Each structure stands twice: as C-alpha cells, then as structure tokens.
C-alpha cells in the first residue's frame, strides 16, 4: 500500500510493475534518487544526459497540485537550458521586471529588475511549479527515447534504508507490495520532511518564523499590469503585508500575511478567502479560486549534505522561507553541482573526494539563501519593538528619501552562489580581470555573433580562450575538455570583453561542467590548465 499524501495535477509516471520486484536478490543500481519533485527530476535529467544510469523513486505518480513555487530565476533557466528544457519554460512563463511597493494605499517606490543587456534569459519568469516539473519530465521522456539511462518509478515509496560500506539497501513499498533494491549512491530529494533524513536520524535545525501566510491563486481576466505588487499595511490587510503576482493562464498569486494567532480553519473557508480577495482586487472583478493554502515557514539546514554514499539535495537538505524565491532555485543549483561530480566519479573514475565538494559548495549556497530569506522574514515579521521601530522608520523614510530604498526588504531575489573559497578553484591568475568572473563564479552570459555564450558551455569542462591563440586539444585524466575560442569579431556587443577581459587583451578560462569558473589566466599555459583541471576534479586535496 502506498498512501496518497496529496492530489496530483498531472499524472506523469503511472505505476508499472518492474522485474526488480520479482528477483530473488535485490538488483543494484548505480544511482537511486528518492523523490521526483523538481530537484529529483532535474538531477535525473542531468545524470541521464551524462550517461549515468539513474532510477527515480516517487511515492506518487505525478506532479502535486498547487502552484507552490512560481518565480524561477535566470540561473535556473540557464541550468534548464543546459538540461534541454529552458525553452518551454520561458515560452509558457510570464516575464516581469517591474516591482511596486505600497504602504497603505500609496506607492512608496518601484523598481525595475532591469536585466543587464546581453543575457539570453530574463532575470525571472513566473511559472507554476507543476509546469516546471512537467517540462523536466517531458525532457526526460525525450532523453529516454534517445537512449538516456533514466528510469522513473511512480508509486514507489521508500520505507527503509540501510547504508552499508559500499552501497545502500532500500525497502520500497508499491501497490503490488514491497521489494528491495540496492544503490551504489543514493540521492535524497524527498522534500522538506525528507523521510530519508528521518530514517537516518539526522537533524534539520534552524528557525521557525511565527507567522502565517495565506496563498490564494485566483483566475481572473483583469488587465492588471505584469508587475509584482507588494503592500505594507494595506487597507485590505491592516497591519500586515500582501503580494500580488501574475502567473500564466490568467492565474494570479495573492499572498496575505495573517500573523501568528489565527484560526486556521476559519481562514481557509472559501467565503472568507473570497472576501479577502475581493477587498484586495476590487468587488467588481470576477475571479475563481484555483488553489489556496496557509503556510508557515522555517529556515533550516542539515549539517552535512553528504553522509557516505547518501547525498541530500533540494528541500531535503535545506529549507528557506518563500521570500526571494530561493527554494526551488537554490535546489536547482544543487542539481547543477552534484550532477557532473557524480558523473565524473562514476563514469570517469574521478576521486571520491570530489563528492565532498558538493557539500562544501552547496552548504555555502544554502547558508546564503537562509541568510537572505531570514532577513526578509525579519523585515516582514518584526520580532520585537525595536525591529518594528526600524522597519517603520525605513518605510517612513522611503517615501521621501531614495537612500532608504535598499533597506526595504520584501524579498531579495535568488542569485546564484559564487564558490569563492572552493577547493576546486585555482588561484586567480587574472587578478585585475572582472570581479564577476573570478574563480568560483557562475559564468555570466553574453551575446555572440551566432547565439549566446552559455549555450556553448556546460556539460563538460571547457577551456574558453578569448583573444588568445587556440590552446589546442586536451584530454586530462579520462576527461575530454572542450575548447571554445572567441575573437573580437564574435563579441558583437563588447559584453564578452566587459565580463571576461576587463582591461586585459586576452584571457583563458577553465569552466566546469556546471558553468562555474574554476580558473583563469592571461595567457594559455597547457601545464597550468592541466593542473587546474586536476584540482577541479580532485575535491578536497588542496
């Protein structure tokens, strides 16, 4: 028996009985992923595209209903481009740039995310999480058809696990009863309440925020602008905050802060919610409630994201408040980080220590996300009179003085993490190069004469030579290295020079398969490149 814990929006991987269920001895799989949410599916796609056989086990047979995540950041779209499913997301998604902040009924300021020119992807799109997951699964299906070794098993609930010296044993429940299998590596992507984490008795510590937020996703055809609108102390939700944001399909996200002491059941009554909505959007506008939910939030993380052969990714490893859209966006960076490392170890015999760097780099990313989303929560939910005093002082000032704008915190939107102190980085040999491309940084995109830079990077180590001689070919420790040479004529807008050269006439970059920069130099030096690749594959041995 596999319990149904939530309703599904789309059935994507119906249960099918497989041979593993009837074999006398458990079948061994190279990688098993527990949980087919966005993070598990993203990882399966990444691994499968690199030819690493992987099996996804999910206790449901499709994508859960409810929009949940709606804001997907540029870095996530770039990762999805690398995985092959960025286009349907951006085609379906709503692009937005303008945000307005209101206090009471007055607009106190507005901002334009003003995406820097010369990036293929916008700063953000709004897209309901079920679509995001659906597009990942559709790409998995295409890759499977092309031979990628990915398998998804729906209604396979992991009920027990046992870590041995060189593998993990899993007990799985299905509609046809239980079976057992083994995994060389296990990746737990089983969400914030991670059963894997619980089975291993591992802690998940952090802060619980004493506040409730009501989400009402409504369908309406009002021609409100495609902007993010945020209110402090609006007449329709006195003393609290509210948010309005557009999604595809004429669906709008309304978010009402409710405070801590509430009658949850009463607040969730459709009539009560409809009254709130009408007070917000105007009584004359017709709407339909699509999804409603009350959430409280916490910012928590595990101590270690690696335990032997078990890795934790996404909400299972870390959870943040929704402010800043750092949950799924942060989790997709886990995927980006772990995918190539597992592939390097499993397919190319890279040292196991490389896998330790997954924890080092992604814990740093998670702590950054927790810091940012906790600060927003502190601004929205003042915890003592001094917090409230300064919050209100900021809001008082912002109407009159521009300097106060950066202090208003209604969400610091997700940014990719720069792995500054990573053991995989080589010392910066282009110290006067642009700061944004120092070792550890995610590569900034740039337009080229024939497309965009990021579309030419990723999946494998790449030597990027700008304004320099062709560095020739490399194969280092079983790892084939791509080479991309760019000259001034490729750099049609000058963005490559600004982002990668600064004042230098030439530069050589070593770029990891996840499009993060491992090393850079002014000139090509084959020995230096070899050493940098070795270091980026070696993990901890600094």
């Amino acid at each position, binding site marked *: 028996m596999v319990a149904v814990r939530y309703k599904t929006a789309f059935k994507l991987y119906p249960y099918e009985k497989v041979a593993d269920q009837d074999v006398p001895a458990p079948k061994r799989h190279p990688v098993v992923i527990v949980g087919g949410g966005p993070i598990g599916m993203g990882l399966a796609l990444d691994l499968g595209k690199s030819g690493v056989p992987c099996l996804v086990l999910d206790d449901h047979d499709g994508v859960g209903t409810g929009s949940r995540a709606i804001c997907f950041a540029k870095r996530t779209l770039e990762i999805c481009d690398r995985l092959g499913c960025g286009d349907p997301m951006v085609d379906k998604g709503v692009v937005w740039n303008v945000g307005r902040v209101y206090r009471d009924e007055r607009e106190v300021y507005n901002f334009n995310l003003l995406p820097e020119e010369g990036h293929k992807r916008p700063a953000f799109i709004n897209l309901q999480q079920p679509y995001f997951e659906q597009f990942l699964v559709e790409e998995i299906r295409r890759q499977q058809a092309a031979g990628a070794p990915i398998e998804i098993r729906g209604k396979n609930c992991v009920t027990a696990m046992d870590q041995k010296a060189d593998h993990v044993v899993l007990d799985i429940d299905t509609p046809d009863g239980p079976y057992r299998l083994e995994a060389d590596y296990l990746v737990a992507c089983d969400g914030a309440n991670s059963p894997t984490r619980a089975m291993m008795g591992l802690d998940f510590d952090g802060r619980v925020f004493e506040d409730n937020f009501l989400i009402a996703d409504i369908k309406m055809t009002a021609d409100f602008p495609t902007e993010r609108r945020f209110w402090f102390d609006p007449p329709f939700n006195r003393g609290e905050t509210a948010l309005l944001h557009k999604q595809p399909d004429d669906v709008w996200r309304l978010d009402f802060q409710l405070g801590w002491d509430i009658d949850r059941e009463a607040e969730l009554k459709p009539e009560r919610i409809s009254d709130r909505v009408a007070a917000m959007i105007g009584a004359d506008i017709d709407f339909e409630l699509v999804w409603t939910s009350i959430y409280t939030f916490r910012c928590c993380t595990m101590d270690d994201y690696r335990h032997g052969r078990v890795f934790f990714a996404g909400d299972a490893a870390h959870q943040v408040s929704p402010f800043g859209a750092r949950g799924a966006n942060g989790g997709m960076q886990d995927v980006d980080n772990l995918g190539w490392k597992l592939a390097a170890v499993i397919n190319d015999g890279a040292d196991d220590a490389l896998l330790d760097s997954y924890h080092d780099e992604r814990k740093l990313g998670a702590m950054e996300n927790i810091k940012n989303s906790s600060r927003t929560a502190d601004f929205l939910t003042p915890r003592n009179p001094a917090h409230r*005093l300064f919050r*209100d*002082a900021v809001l008082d*000032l912002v109407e009159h003085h521009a*300097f*106060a704008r950066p*202090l208003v915190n209604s969400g610091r939107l997700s940014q990719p993490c720069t792995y500054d102190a990573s053991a995989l980085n080589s010392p910066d040999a282009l110290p006067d190069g642009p700061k944004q491309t120092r070792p550890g940084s995610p590569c900034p995109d740039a337009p080229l004469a024939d497309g965009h830079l990021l579309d030419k990077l990723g999946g494998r180590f790449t030597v990027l030579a700008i304004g320099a001689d062709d560095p020739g070919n490399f194969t280092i420790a079983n790892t084939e290295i791509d080479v991309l040479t760019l000259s001034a004529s490729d750099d049609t807008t000058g963005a490559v020079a600004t982002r990668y050269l600064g004042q230098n006439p030439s530069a050589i970059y070593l770029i990891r398969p996840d499009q993060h920069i491992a090393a850079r130099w002014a000139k090509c030096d084959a020995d230096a490149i070899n050493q940098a690749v070795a270091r980026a594959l070696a993990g901890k041995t600094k």
Partner: protein
Amino acid sequence: MTTLNTAPNLERADDFYAALLSAHDGLEEAEMHALNARLILVLANHIGDQTVLEAAIEAAKIPPPEAQT
C-alpha cells in the same frame, strides 16, 4: 575614513545638542522613538562605511554598570 572617530569631532557641540533636543519638542514618546530611529538611518546612510557603522554600533553598547569599575 575607515575607522570610527570617537574623539571630539562636533563643530558646535552645544548647537547640535540643542537642535537634537528641540526636534523632540511636542512629540509623544512613540514619535520620539520613531524620530530617533529615522535619524539613525539618515546618519548611517551618510556614513556609508560598514566597518565604521559596526564600530559605531559597538561603541554605543555601553557595558552594564556591574561590568564597569
């Protein structure tokens, strides 16, 4: 400037102090607190330097009486 100046630095100390007090004339207590909070933010922005601001926050934390000798 990257260090906090705790030596006397006010051009006209008594005039500043008088201006500070008179800004509070006629205010309710809550309004006084609000004014001071805004004033801190205005001054902090003018200073701008995070190191100096953190030193200023520390300098403002006078040790409790029992810790003083």
